């Protein structure tokens, strides 16, 4: 926290704020490097990044809060941002300003000024401003606003040293030009502000170090959060009736609501200050960004280009990702083989090799895919193309009652449903958010890919790529279809505004893409390390206990007999035949034991439900464990089908075993089931937290299982009727 009680070392906390797309995050990355932590703020799951550095004997803590256009707190991220600014324990607020868009960016700065907290403005992308020929008299502007102004270029790190020096100076209260400047709202509004402020004072409203004037303004703007905060206090009736009276009085006087008038005054103040200090160069209307957009959002080219980018992202993730995947695979195989050879057969070896390495290793091999995918998504975001996707997709998304922005969480879902569900937070209305979250898990996440690869590779080796592409296509189809259905049934009613910014195209920085990629990779590994490791052990236990001594002994005896016969025989052909029998016997032994373990029992318990789909108890077991994490479906099938003690090319053994056990049609039905049924536990936990309603959580759980069952049923019986059995 700020100013902790250690007297010898100074420590200061800074909050980085600013409009979306102002380059705030690149400044944050530039300051803290990869030394960041992502955390949540106040119970909601909006990411708030923190990082710290040491600088000239002081410890500096930074928080990168979500971008916001103003302090009116409209989206959930903006509510979080404002909450942090008001209630967070920061010494200095650093407002990152996009120099190329001063008017709108200063609109936030003005509101931060009104808070009365120590503030430093960082005029970012200053190089672009200079290049455009516009000149700003920053000394004068700094004087007019009463705050220090620094120049930064986030992507190169230029000016950040000065920014830090200034911020520390302000934190130490030793910066010379600080004085308070207030926007004057005119006699009528000022009277209202005055009255409300003094009434708030009278009821002992806790202003948390912020000017009471700011709260009065918020009341006049009919701010819901602040009004609620006041309502909870005793004696608030006087304030609230005054609020009502003043708003009505102002509206009667000006034929305009107070919020609009306040906003106009703020813009007036900004324009006044800019008029004195900014010399604008004649603007070249058709900039490079505009030229690019002429192509990217062109009536005929937009969708082919979009499809091409998606195809590229796919190829990079899955084709390019296949190489490091192979290295991982052989590494894991080598490790299990080595351990297998080095250790004596025991329960512990079995736990280590079959349970832990088998389970976790099977998940680890997909890390390259995830890294490449998120690298790509980060590039899409940083270039500004993500916003164009929303722009060209809105009409279609709107049809199913969603926002163009909903397409982004859905795309993210290809990587992982967890960030996808979280990305739905960028949607303003609760309705849009819940609808998006309900359908987002239908999008095939990368954890489902191992299952796809295994089954498509096993049953459709010639068309594996096409089958996988079809699955992705259908996952989007079902998401849209269910969205449409929900809109027509559960979510009838008003929709939320779409208005959003299309930021200029920018060259993405490698650093930011790498940091983003690293964060996602880390998240995936943490999930794997924790949840999957624990459950790999649990599954190993469930699939090895209770120990069935009797059955084992029976089979061991038969196996022994066979082995003796093999040793005694001299005919090559009969030896071959006996060896084959031995192999069969070993598999049978394994299967018989499995059947009576805890996990086999649970699989058989649900088998009657899965029978109509052509699934057996082993598929049932793998689906149950798939609830833990979808990729676990593969490792479970691995454990269930692989004869213990045989650790060759694991996947090859598994593929052969699967091919013997199921028809391609059953394999396809299983693929559809895995595609549609309940997401993994992490996604489900995220979902519960995000929708904040048990009703919706249970609904989501239930409808997905029902949908998965129905579609798998249709695939199987459709196939049988059409003669593909």
């Amino acid at each position: 926290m700020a100013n902790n009680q250690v007297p010898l070392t100074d420590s200061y906390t800074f909050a980085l704020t600013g409009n979306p797309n102002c380059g705030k995050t690149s400044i944050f990355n530039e300051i803290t490097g990869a030394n960041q932590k992502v955390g949540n703020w106040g119970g909601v799951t909006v990411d708030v990044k923190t990082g710290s550095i040491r600088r000239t004997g002081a410890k500096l803590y930074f928080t990168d809060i979500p971008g916001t256009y103003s302090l009116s707190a409209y989206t959930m991220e903006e509510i979080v941002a404002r909450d942090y600014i008001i209630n967070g324990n920061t010494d200095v607020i650093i407002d990152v300003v996009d120099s190329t868009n001063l008017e709108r960016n200063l609109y936030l700065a003005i509101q931060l000024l009104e808070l009365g907290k120590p503030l430093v403005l960082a005029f970012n992308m200053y190089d672009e401003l200079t290049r455009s020929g516009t000149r700003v008299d920053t000394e004068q502007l700094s004087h007019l606003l009463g705050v220090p102004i620094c120049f930064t270029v986030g992507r190169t790190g230029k000016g950040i040293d000065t920014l830090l020096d200034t911020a520390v100076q302000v934190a130490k209260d030793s910066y010379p030009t600080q004085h308070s400047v207030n926007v004057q709202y005119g006699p009528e509004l000022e009277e209202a502000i005055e009255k409300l402020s003094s009434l708030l004072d009278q009821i002992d409203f806790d202003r948390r170090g912020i000017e009471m004037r700011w709260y009065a303004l918020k009341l006049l703007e009919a701010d819901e959060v602040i009004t609620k905060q006041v309502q909870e206090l005793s004696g608030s009736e006087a304030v609230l009736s005054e609020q009502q009276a003043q708003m009505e009085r102002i509206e009667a006087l000006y034929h305009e609501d107070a919020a609009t008038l306040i906003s106009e005054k703020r813009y007036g103040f900004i324009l006044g200050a800019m008029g004195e200090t900014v010399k604008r160069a004649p603007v070249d209307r058709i900039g490079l960004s505009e030229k690019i957009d002429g192509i990217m959002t062109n009536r005929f080219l937009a969708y082919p280009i979009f499809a091409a980018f998606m195809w590229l992202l796919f190829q990079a993730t899955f084709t390019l990702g296949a190489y490091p995947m192979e290295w991982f695979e052989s590494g894991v195989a080598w490790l299990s083989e080595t351990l297998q050879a080095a250790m004596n057969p025991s329960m512990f070896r079995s736990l280590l090799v079959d349970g832990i390495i088998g389970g976790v290793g099977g998940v680890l091999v997909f890390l390259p895919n995830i890294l490449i995918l998120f690298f790509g998504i980060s590039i899409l975001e940083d270039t500004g193309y993500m916003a164009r996707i929303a722009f060209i997709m809105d009409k279609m998304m709107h049809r199913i009652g969603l926002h163009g922005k909903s397409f982004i969480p859905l795309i993210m879902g290809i990587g992982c449903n967890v960030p996808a569900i979280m990305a739905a937070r960028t949607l303003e209305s609760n309705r849009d958010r819940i609808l998006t979250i309900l359908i987002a898990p239908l999008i095939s996440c990368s954890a489902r890919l191992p299952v796809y690869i295994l089954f498509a590779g096993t049953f459709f080796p010639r068309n594996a790529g096409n089958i996988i592409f079809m699955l992705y296509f259908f996952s989007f189809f079902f998401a849209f279809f269910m969205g449409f259905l929900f809109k027509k049934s559960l979510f009838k009613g008003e929709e939320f505004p779409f208005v959003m910014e299309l930021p200029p195209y920018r060259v993405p920085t490698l650093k930011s893409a790498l940091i983003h990629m690293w964060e996602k990779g880390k998240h995936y590994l943490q999930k794997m390390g924790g949840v999957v490791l624990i459950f790999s052990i649990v599954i190993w236990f469930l699939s090895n206990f209770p120990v069935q001594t009797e059955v084992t002994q029976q089979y061991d005896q038969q196996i022994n007999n066979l082995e003796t016969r093999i040793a005694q025989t001299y005919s090559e052909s009969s030896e071959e035949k006996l060896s084959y029998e031995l192999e069969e016997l070993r598999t049978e032994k394994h299967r018989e034991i499995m059947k009576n373990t805890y996990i086999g029992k649970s699989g058989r318990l649900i088998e009657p439900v899965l029978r109509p789909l052509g699934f057996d108890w082993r598929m049932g077991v793998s689906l149950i464990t798939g609830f833990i994490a979808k990729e676990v479906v593969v490792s479970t099938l691995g454990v269930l089908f692989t004869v213990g003690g045989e650790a060759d090319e694991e996947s090859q053994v598994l593929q052969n075993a699967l091919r013997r056990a199921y028809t391609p049609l059953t394999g396809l039905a299983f693929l559809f089931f895995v595609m549609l049924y309940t997401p993994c536990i992490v996604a489900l936990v995220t979902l519960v937290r995000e929708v904040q309603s048990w009703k919706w959580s249970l609904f989501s759980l239930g409808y997905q299982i029902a949908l998965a069952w129905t579609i798998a049923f249709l695939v199987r019986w459709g196939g049988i009727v059409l003669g593909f059995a």
Partner: protein
Amino acid sequence: MDTPLSLCREGDRVTIKKLTGHGGFKKRLLDLGFRKGKELTVVRYAPLRDPMEVDLSGSHISLRVEEADHIEVTPTSETHGK
């Protein structure tokens, strides 16, 4: 003469006369820089004719056509649309 922004064509240059929306939507417009007296240019419509994109002194904002109904504008200069 005031017309809703939604009736403007690509390339039209107009001045905002009034915002007629309500509550959160109107605040959002204000936060993004839509205010009385502000000039804007209609840049384009999305490939499916909705939403539309406007240039608000260098910052590009997209909004649905039905939302643009709530922004009353008047032509600033000769339109140079298609």
